[in-house]
């Protein structure tokens, strides 16, 4: 196998750099996916039928907690990759662990928020606005859930093998994914919650 040792480990083999490019392309598709969901939401968000509108159900408190948790997790994820590049296995694992815990916290708050909505009578079936809200947030939440499972599996592999060509590549790609979820959340925060509360 040809290795270019001037590159960080996650890029070093041809397969590794192919995988990273492939994942960037996949993220391009994900951007289109979320853009479509945003377009649907922004088309429907005033169409509340007989149900509540955005102002009536949104609460800034839980949303700020979610934002804080997810943004911090993105930061710790960056620290994890940084430590990985310095060859520090243990700190990197710790930072990945914190990342996943913060993600879990985010998911918990989001589920509680959903439960609150449903208890207030705002369900997927109530109106077009709520359908599009639940599906947009739910798709993001599902991505976070997949990220938690993926990251968890990855940590087991790193613990067993250390940072090899394969695990460093996987960790880096996981970090791309995790940062992407953060970016999507920033758009949700601005165009769903802030816009809805204004």
């Amino acid at each position, binding site marked *: 196998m040809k290795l270019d040792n001037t590159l960080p480990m996650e890029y070093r083999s041809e397969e590794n750099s192919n995988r990273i490019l492939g994942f960037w392309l996949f993220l391009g*598709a994900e951007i289109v996916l979320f853009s479509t969901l945003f377009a*649907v939401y922004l088309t429907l968000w005033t169409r509340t039928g007989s149900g509540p509108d955005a102002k009536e159900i949104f609460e800034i408190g839980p949303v700020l907690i979610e934002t804080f948790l997810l943004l911090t997790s993105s930061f710790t994820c960056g620290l994890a990759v940084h430590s990985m590049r310095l060859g520090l296995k243990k700190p990197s694992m710790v930072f990945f662990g914190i990342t996943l815990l913060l993600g879990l916290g985010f998911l918990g708050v989001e589920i509680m928020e959903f439960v609150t909505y449903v208890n207030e009578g705002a369900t*997927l079936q109530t*109106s077009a606005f*709520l*359908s599009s809200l639940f599906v947009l947030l739910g798709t993001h939440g599902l991505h976070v859930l997949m990220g938690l499972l993926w990251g968890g599996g990855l940590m087991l592999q790193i613990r067993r093998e250390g940072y090899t060509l394969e695990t460093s590549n996987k960790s880096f790609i996981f970090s791309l994914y995790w940062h992407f979820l953060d970016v999507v959340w920033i758009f949700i925060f601005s165009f769903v919650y802030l816009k809805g509360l204004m």
Partner: protein
Amino acid sequence: MKWDEFFVTGEPMIYGAMASIVLASLAIVVGLTYFKKWGYLWREWLTTVDHKKIGIMYIIAALLMLFRGGMDGLLMRAQLAIPENGLLDAQHYNEIFTTHGLIMILFMAMPFVIGLMNVVIPLQIGARDVAFPRLNAVSFWLFFAGAMLLNISFVIGGSPDAGWTAYFPLASIELSPTVGNNYYSIALQIAGIGTLLTSVNFLVTILKMRAPGMKLMRMPMFTWSVLITNVIILFAFPVLTVSLALMMFDRMFGAQFFTMANGGMDMLWANLFWVWGHPEVYIVILPAFGIYSEIISTFSRKNLYGYKSMVYSMVIISLLSFLVWAHHFYTMGHGVTVNGFFSISTMAIAVPTGVKIFNWLFTLRKGKIEFTTPMLYSLAFIPIFTIGGVTGVMLAMASADYQYHNTMFLVAHFHYVLIPGTVFAVLAGFYYWFPKLFGFRLNDKQGKRAFWLIAVSFNVTFLPLFFLGLKGMTRRTFTYSAETGFGPLNMLASIGAVGLALGFVYLVYNIYWSFRYAPRDTTGDPWDARTLEWSTPSPVPEYNFALIPKVDGLDPFWNSKKTGQPLTEGEYEEIHMPNNSGQPFILGMIFMAFGFCMVFSWWVPSIVFGIGIVIMLAVRSFERDHGRHISVKEIKETEQRLRGEQS
């Protein structure tokens, strides 16, 4: 759900279909057991990660689907042949035109194109496989799962019946209460994920794995067309993913996206569908342009005229393809400005397309033209496609479209675009690259007979539909009265359809005959062609190139033949290849089971299979498979065996 609703009952043709499905499955099982081929099937095909074999499986599936979709077409033509025909009832007719469209576009044209892409692209760019061979197998088996799900709907539960466009509110649970449109949302979703993964795979392959010296502007035109097509797939298919998911939420979970009350917006579906649907047209047409470019250049013995303008025109087409979607529903009441914008953007597409047509004509000019079967398809394409294109510009005029909309004129138009555009192209490509895969050419004389039968019958079938449309016959009506005067032209079209069917049957005979009797090709280059794939021996060894060729211009193989400069130099080295795996097949089967349970809203089994999918992903993640190496000795032996006559 009651069991008598589970199977579709009460229709003799359906019982016939059930019987034939059972008999065909039995025949396959018995045949495999009798000839002891189960192990062969598993080792060589179901678990393969070789791009050439995956391509062959795509093409076989596409040919089967061509006949399934063709049967639908024949049934429609049989029903419409005479006024007041009672062969099919309205519901059955609705299901048939819906599945005809879905199958022909998504399960015939797409896999045929992707199949050729799989077979040709790595060979054309001098690579040993695609970037992610395992993912490639996953793509195939997801496509396969989706195709099987849609086909089984015919006998279990009922097929989708709201048109291949599935407009709301018609496709809603209130107006289409059978599970038919659940099949639509789930089967297309699964196949669509496969297609998206294919696009990522081929983009990386083309961008990163070209032979040394092959700059972007030295790529063969088919590779260019596939690169651009995959960019379109990458940006169009996620829109389909979302649309189908919203449809699923509306139909199965009571969401209000496209409903008529509670704020829902039915037109949102039409917009989302065509934001994917129009680029989809170019996804199946651009590779066809690439195939024609290769074939016309090869059989004119000239390099392609206007290479750069070919590339730029495809790039422009790909951008415009995202800006024309609303021309599919001018009549649905978005104002003058919107219609005007989409009218102009649609007509603009004719410009780059026209550039391409002239480039092909100039490639032919003063060429030493050889009339082989693939060349005949390519030559027939140019005038027939132009008729399709010009009627497309007629339809693009929003105000005139109020006359044409939803008539047989439109049906004739898109068949005039898609059949010479895509079907002729994939057939031409099939004849052209067949010897590369199997080591012999399909009999040319029979191929030409099939071509003439198909090309003439095509025009007999679809030309009358233009006139029927102008006379006011609407599409998707299951019968008409004799007073309308539509009878004779419809009869003519139906006669043409029989001719088309005979043409395709003859084509299958052509394949069968050639497998048995055609002389073997030992050169690897039976057409005296230009691009790298023809520098390999036929059939191609699993590692494609024993030595990776060096490229210093367009048409490298042609130049090497003319100048005598060898394409490769150096000594053989060990070649690293990926191992076969059963996981993609198993994953596809789990997806199929998952999809089937979802269609019938069987939640508990759906969740179980859903967990199964996650487990399969985890298994793959924890697996450590570093592939295997082919030794220098083995390469030498293989090359000597395959190139025996030359050395």
